[in-house]
């Protein structure tokens, strides 16, 4: 399984802070996003925001990062701390 997390505006808009996915072969972070966007119109809209960031195992990464079972994938908007 892959653990998927959402933070901040994304978490609120999706009313979801985490979910589980089954890993498939050569599953990239982009593929996960596309798969999640098929959930319904709301998810399609929220996940099409053009400034989304993705982290795998708590490290920011790219959209072609290949995800394996056991990984933690997080989607979130640009950070605004400090």
């Amino acid at each position, binding site marked *: 399984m892959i653990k998927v*997390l959402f*933070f*901040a*505006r994304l*978490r*609120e808009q999706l009313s979801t802070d985490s979910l589980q996915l089954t890993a498939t072969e050569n599953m990239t972070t982009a593929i996960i996003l596309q798969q999640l966007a098929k959930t319904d119109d709301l998810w399609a809209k929220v996940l099409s925001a053009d*400034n989304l960031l993705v*982290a795998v195992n*708590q*490290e*920011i990464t790219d959209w072609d990062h290949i995800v394996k079972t056991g990984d933690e994938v*997080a989607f*979130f*908007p*640009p*950070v*605004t*701390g*400090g």
Partner: protein
Amino acid sequence: MIRVQQNDFNVADEYEKLANDNQDGAVVTFVGKVRDFNEGLGVQGLSLEHYPGMTESVLNDIEKQAREHWPLNHVTIIHRVGDLTLGEQIVFIGVTSPHRKAAFAACEFLIDFLKTKAPFWKQELTTEGSKWLNAKACDDQTSQQWSNKLNIKN
């Protein structure tokens, strides 16, 4: 020393812990606070969310990068999460070094990178309701300028 916490911090205590070393000629501290204006609305407070685990790992990494570039002795990074009211402290960065320029540069580097790399998100509580803040392009530029200058890969 890196801490992410709900509780307030005490600048006097943090200063004491930083500044007890006779090898350090320079102590530079930065404190960021909730201020009473942003994009024109009356801000009454903030709510700060973060990504536990990733936050600490990013802050450790930023500290490590700073130590690679400047001769630092003590480094303290404290960031609060949860609800904060107007005037409250959000973040403390303190560094000590034998050299003042190193202390200034490292302290500013740490807060600039924290602002663009560490997974914190601010929600402003205004008189018109709450809303998530948008990232500032200028913060990104600042961090990019450091990266170019120090030859850091983002």
